């Protein structure tokens, strides 16, 4: 390979051990993700996709194997995570939530303000900056979460089903907003979802996972130009074919795990 990949995962296995029984959540995951690639991990709940993301996020530790995230710029954090809706800290204002990562790294005040302002503006929350999360809607909270991750300017972004708790209309709007912000920075993204539509809309490549043990059973490239929107995915017959194909694959995976 002539170009070093951004994320390299090598033979990564994670076992949860409790009361003398071991559950293999992830088994021999091998993966390379290129710089600037948007990759979706798609699989049924309980297939270990969240575990993989948490390991990359430094929140869990792999049992064996290793992973590497390559660093392009000094002083840049390796990764930032966009959490699910509850991940916005309730006792910090919108503004302080967005600035959270920057403040934790003790960047100069001026820089913190500039970047916070920029991303507050990007997600359209400038006029809500002094409010607390309890005073804004679920969609706005998720915008805060997105702004917080992008403001931190990490090497890669990890997203853990960020839109799972939103209603469908809000979800469509936020998906497109996220794609817009992403297209500016072209950061490498690993995105977890259980929605096939979402995976087709967002990603360059979809990794299908099976459960117990969690393994990547197949990958599919999404051959659709950018910028994209939901109408394009829905009206494209090729995408419809992809959808059915992925669905059949997942169905067999889900059935298989039920029989176990």
């Amino acid at each position, binding site marked *: 390979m002539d170009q070093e990949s951004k994320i390299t995962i090598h033979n990564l296995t994670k076992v949860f051990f409790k009361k003398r029984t071991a559950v293999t959540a992830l088994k021999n995951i091998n993966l390379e993700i290129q710089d600037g690639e948007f990759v979706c991990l798609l699989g049924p709940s309980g297939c270990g996709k969240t575990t993989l993301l948490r390991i990359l*996020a430094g929140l869990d530790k792999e049992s064996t194997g290793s992973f590497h995230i390559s660093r392009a710029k000094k002083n840049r*954090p390796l990764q930032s995570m966009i959490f699910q809706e509850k991940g916005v800290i309730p006792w910090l204002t919108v503004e302080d939530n967005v600035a959270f990562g920057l403040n934790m790294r003790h960047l100069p005040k001026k820089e913190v303000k500039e970047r916070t302002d920029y991303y507050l503006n990007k997600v359209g929350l400038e006029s809500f900056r002094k409010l607390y999360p*309890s005073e804004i809607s679920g969609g706005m909270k998720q915008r805060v979460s997105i702004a917080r991750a992008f403001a931190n300017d990490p090497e890669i972004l990890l997203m853990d089903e960020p839109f799972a708790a939103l209603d469908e209309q809000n979800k469509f709007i936020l998906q497109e907003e996220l794609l817009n912000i992403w297209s500016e920075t072209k950061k490498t993204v690993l995105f977890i979802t259980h929605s096939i539509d979402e995976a087709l809309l967002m990603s360059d490549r979809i990794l299908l996972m099976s459960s117990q043990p969690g393994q990547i059973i197949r990958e599919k490239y999404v051959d659709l130009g950018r910028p994209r929107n939901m109408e394009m995915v829905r009206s494209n017959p090729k995408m419809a074919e992809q959808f059915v194909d992925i669905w059949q694959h997942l169905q067999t995976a889900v059935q298989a795990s039920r029989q176990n």
Partner: protein
Amino acid sequence: MDTARITKSHPENPIAVEEHLWKKRKRREGLKHTLTVFSPIFLLVLWEFLSRTQLIDPRFFPPPTEIIGTFAQMVMTGDLFTHLEISFYRIIGGFLLGVIPAILLGLLMGMYTPVKYFFSPIIMALMPIPTLALMPIILIIFGIGDFGKMVTIAGSVFFPVVINTAAGVANIDQIYLDVAKNYGAKSKDFFWKIALPGSLPVMLEGIQMGQAIALLTIVAAEMMGAHSGIGYLIWTSYKAFLLKDMYVGLVLISFFGYFFSILLRMLQKKLIPWRK
């Protein structure tokens, strides 16, 4: 039923129907407020009546109007303020002496498991012992001055606050700890941005409880070894059979409780503005 009748009289006007229902709800709200204000007044009037008609013994239950008279007299002579002032000073001093170490230890227990497992059994063992039972020892060690009383109050305020603070930290949702870790919070930032604000709501409930206990303790502490204060006033009035003076003391305690709970509620609004 009522709605049906109104609908008949304004068959075309949904706003009129809703307005009528809204007014009805308003009236019911008003009734609740009236009851809240009326109930203590009712009690006082009943007491006055029973005492004046000698249905209850006015020597033990002097009529409220006479207690108010005694109160006015005590205000005139200035006696009352000396007692109030000294009790206030002891409560505040003892309260802070108990609350501050309790918050610090509670936060440490919440943040560091070894600290928690070390101190938990000690706290559990000491908590059921009433501080008042320890008063003789406290008096020997700290003397019968104000400080001894503050230590007594501090001792009883300490426990609910330390337990609630530790629980407050322990109950912070795991996801906020994940966010802090993922965004690289060091332990100092973690303390100020996550542990302290996250534990505040539960901690303040503990402080509220501590405040109530402080009032119970001060009165008892001043009954034992004191020459001033509200507890002293109540106790000596009782012994001299000046029951009106005693009642004034009791009313003052009630007033103290009200005052402190309003103070704490204001503090709560100030400290946890994110709670809606």
